[in-house]
């Protein structure tokens, strides 16, 4: 569909095409519906609810007004056939429905359904409206009607099964899902529905079977892993349960529903696309989100928020340069857009363009001085530009504002180490470790400092070893083994240090990490050479007994 002239080209074309499609769906020209709708018939119609258009996006409000005018014109035409009148009401209902103006949509569909009761689509759409309103009995009745009118209405069957499930009508639900499967064998949404029913009935074996079948048909539907995990838990297979729990996500399954899905084509306006984009983004569907945000930008090129969101979605898709371009465009529109500035700074840091990022992050902090993330990001940008001194203040502030932030602790300590402020670094890490005792990163950094600090005063071999054991036990790997070796060396336990370091060297050789091997081997040689074997301090002093802080 091409946009030809003016902003109304799409809605009008759509309106006309919907009218044509609906007319065809209603039957051929020989049916009784082709007769003009007489006064008696018209008098039985439901007044159409008029939604409050105040406050809607101007584009949306104008679109709805125009759709209503079109419908009213059809209604006013005394020669309008029953089919045409039904199509007019139904089309207006679809516009309202597309914007979730359910009461207005419902009143239109009721008329359409009254005029052409043989048309399954009105029953289907009425069911969808009822489902959204939480009127499950009504929804069930409408889906049943749609299915009876159109036995191939697969979506109606699956939705019917879902509604029955919520109504506690398990047997009816099962029959609906199985009928859906007969139409569409292997359908993941029908399988998932049957799985849910089995789970509710505590028939865990069946639930596993259905959820697995659904996942096989729709491997991206990672939300099913949770239901599957619960089914396995019920069966007592805890290992499988935990495995699937780890794979759970936010993507579910739903039946393809062309009658409802086409409503999205009717929506217009920046706000609508923003809302849809945010929903897609929140579900991790970044490509879809980017498309929606791009549509929002197209609807309103001066929308800074649409540009920021588009940039964010593009960033999630890995295109940081495109994201930066959008953030910059947003800032041209609205220089006070803090989110745009933060995201711009973040993207620039990620692209190792820290110097460019700094002024943006400083501007963010001017307007929101309590933003811990912005402080941390600025600190990292300053570190990247070599300004460790300036970074300290921001690492500190980030830790104050977000005491659970591990990066603020390790980042700040790292800067202090580079500045050779070892005592202060130890103090920062020690406080961080006390505050967040289960952070492996902090424990590791503290242990390393205590084991191998260039300043002898900071060293504490016993505590370093204690921490190193904890870190290694939590995650045994060569890096943590090296930490044990360093700590043992600090305590003068050179033979043991050499044994641990040998393991590290062997692991590095096995992994082909040739670039680090010389340094690791040098440490090993030092340990092997016997006491004193600790890492040398600045003072060049070494002790055969190691050090323990008093």
């Amino acid at each position, binding site marked *: 569909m091409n946009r030809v002239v003016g902003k109304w080209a799409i809605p009008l074309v759509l309106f006309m095409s919907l009218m044509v499609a609906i007319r065809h769906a209603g039957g051929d020209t020989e049916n009784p519906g082709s007769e003009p709708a007489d006064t008696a018939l018209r008098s039985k119609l439901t007044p159409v*609810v008029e*939604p*409050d258009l105040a*406050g*809607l*996006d101007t584009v*949306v409000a104008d679109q709805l007004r125009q759709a209503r005018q079109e419908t009213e014109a059809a209604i006013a035409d005394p020669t309008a056939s029953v089919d045409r009148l039904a199509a007019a009401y139904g089309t207006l209902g679809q516009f309202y429905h597309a*914007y*979730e*103006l*359910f*009461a207005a949509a419902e009143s239109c569909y009721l008329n359409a359904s009254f005029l052409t009761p043989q048309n399954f689509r009105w029953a289907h759409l009425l069911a969808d409206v009822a489902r*959204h*309103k*939480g*009127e*499950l*009995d009504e929804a069930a009745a409408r889906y049943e009607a749609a299915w009876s009118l159109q036995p191939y209405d697969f979506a109606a069957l699956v939705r019917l099964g879902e509604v029955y*499930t*919520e*109504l*506690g009508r398990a047997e009816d639900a099962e029959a609906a899902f199985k009928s859906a499967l007969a139409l569409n064998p292997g359908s993941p949404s029908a399988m998932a529905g049957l799985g*849910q029913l089995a*789970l*509710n009935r*505590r028939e865990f074996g069946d639930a596993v079977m259905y959820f697995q079948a659904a996942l096989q048909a729709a491997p991206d539907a990672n*939300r*099913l*892993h*949770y*239901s599957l995990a*619960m089914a396995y*838990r*019920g069966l007592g297979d805890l290992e499988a*349960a*935990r495995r699937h*729990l780890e794979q*759970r996500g*936010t993507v*579910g399954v739903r039946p393809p529903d062309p009658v409802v899905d086409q409503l999205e084509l009717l929506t217009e*306006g920046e*706000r*609508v696309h*923003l*809302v*849809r984009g*945010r929903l897609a983004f*929140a579900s991790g569907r970044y490509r879809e989100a980017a498309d929606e945000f791009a549509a929002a930008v197209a609807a309103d090129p001066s929308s800074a*928020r649409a540009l920021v969101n588009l940039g964010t979605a593009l960033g999630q898709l890995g295109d940081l340069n495109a994201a930066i371009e959008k953030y910059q465009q947003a800032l041209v529109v609205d220089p006070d857009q*803090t989110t745009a500035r933060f995201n711009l700074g973040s993207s620039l840091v990620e692209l190792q363009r820290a110097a460019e990022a700094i002024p943006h992050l400083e501007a963010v902090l001017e307007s*929101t001085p*309590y*933003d811990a993330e912005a402080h941390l990001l600025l600190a990292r940008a300053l570190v990247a530009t070599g300004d460790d001194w300036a970074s300290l203040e921001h690492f500190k502030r980030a830790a104050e504002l977000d*005491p*659970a932030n591990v990066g603020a602790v390790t980042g700040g300590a790292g800067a202090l180490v580079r500045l050779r402020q070892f005592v202060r670094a130890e103090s920062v890490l020690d406080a961080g470790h*006390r*505050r*967040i*005792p*289960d952070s492996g990163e902090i424990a590791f950094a503290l242990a390393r400092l205590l084991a191998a600090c260039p300043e002898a005063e900071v060293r504490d071999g016993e505590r370093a070893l204690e921490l190193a054991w904890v870190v290694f036990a939590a995650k045994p790997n060569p890096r943590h083994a090296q930490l044990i070796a360093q700590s043992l060396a600090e305590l003068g336990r050179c033979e043991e240090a050499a044994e641990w370091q040998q393991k590290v060297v062997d692991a590095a050789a096995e992994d082909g990490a040739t670039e680090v091997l010389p340094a690791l081997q040098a440490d090993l040689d030092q340990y092997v050479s016997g006491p004193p074997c600790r890492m040398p301090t600045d003072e060049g002093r070494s002790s055969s007994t190691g050090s323990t802080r008093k």
Partner: protein
Amino acid sequence: MECVTTGRSISRLVAAIVAACGLLVAASGYGAAPGDVVFVDVARSAGIEFTHFNGMTGNFTIAEITGQGAGLVDFDGDGDLDVYLVQGQLLGKEMSKAVFPWRGADPPTDRLYRNDLIVNRDGTSRLRFIDVTGASGIEAVGYGMGVATGDYDNDGHVDLYITNLGSNQLYRNRGDGTFEDVTSKTGVDDPRWSTCAAFVDYDRDGDLDLYVSNYVDFETSPTRECYSKSSARDFCGPDAYNPVPDRLFRNRGDGTFEDVTLASGIGKQFGAGFGVVAADYNLDGWIDIYVANDGDPNQLWINNGDGSFRNEALWAGAAINSEGSAEASMGVDADDFDEDGDDDIFMTHIMEETNTLYVNDGTGLFEDRTSAAGLATISLGKTGFGTGWFDFDNDGWLDLLIHNGAVRALAERVRAGDPYPLGQPNHLLRNTGKGTFEIASDSAGEPFQLIEVSRGAAFGDIDNDGDTDVLMANNNGPARLLINQIGNRNHWIGLRLLAGKVERDALGARVQVVLADGSSRWRRVRTDGSFCSSRDPRVLVGLGAAAKVKEVRILWPGGRRETWRNPPVDQYSTFREGTAPGEKK
């Protein structure tokens, strides 16, 4: 055992209310003649004239539709429940711009109403509340969200913790009718947006610790704009903001608290926190903490017994619904609705989702049984907040109250010309005793026909007549005091449990009431649950037709077990730890 003289016939109370309020109320049991009234709102006639001010200025600020809770607390220790009501503030700079003007003579603040329950010689009684805020020394002028109650300093006087959008306040009860603000002294402030809180002795050291649920980082962007799918400006949901961690404060026992949020592991995982309810979900003797998060997976903090917690919600099946979706959890309560000896969880959600019933299998693992229990259908189309398990008809089975009120404009309310178009009716659901629930709202009285934006619900026997009443907090509306008129068709037993040697309610204690036929009712002492509200710490157990209780078995928070035989029924009795017959004094 100490027996108190607060048990009396409901028919007498009804007479008293008729006299006091001019309300024509018939004593009735549930299922009595059609048209009988179960609950009557007596707030105004009893002296509570409180209207919540949400401070909205037309900017669709999320905070203005979120609050607020309410508390039932016997602050003066005279044996009847007093009322604490949480107030909002202007969310803007000019009072003249408030959409719903503040009509009070003084600026809006939280209010404390003293219950001067009058008991006549003939046993009839009359409820009368006196606003004692000024004399109490309470100056709660923050944008209020909720209230938690507990005697943190073990001095026998219950204290108040007020949660706010902004700094919170801990008020120490001096025991002479006045309070002092000890927030700074005790170290329990949290300057973020706190919502609900709970006093809980998680480390079993004999003093109450404090869990504070926090919502989102509102301060950094209070004016964020959000839209509905129709493109109309609407209130933002929590997903428009970043959630902030909850807090756990450990009571040092010296009048101060230590922030152990990170050390305990609580700070590791968090969402937009609302309701919180503590119970020993896995029955290992250590009290756990369940937190309802709005739009994020809920947390079930299992107590490791060493001062730390681990979040087991996902594995336990209580983080998200059975279809794997996180829901907009608001209020929450836990109790043993199926009488199998463990605590089950009920939670309220937004209108597009069903409320959720998580049934405990006795080991701390849960199953989502919402649909099977018949709780799905009724909740769709309503946004639930305050909720609680309570046996409104004293038949022995815990029923449910659900306070509703939308968080987005409802088209039908807009069309009806409602200037605050979020109102929805509340629900009373009766437990059939067969694992299912049926709607009881229709015959529950006028309060259940009202269309209001209800939030917090506090439960307790306000008139000491042996049935559970409800304090209702309405956002941008009047507080209501729903007095239960169910009648004395069923027997009951009321218990007050005091911990150790102090005059403190033994929050966390578990009670097993054993009937002559061997069946049991399990309850626990608590003030938490619902939505940012605080309830009666006394345990009121409906006995149905049973006129006798064989035993009351108590598992105290510290692990001691005691049994009392043949306790009196249809009255309240006090049980003090370490005083059961046969116990060494």
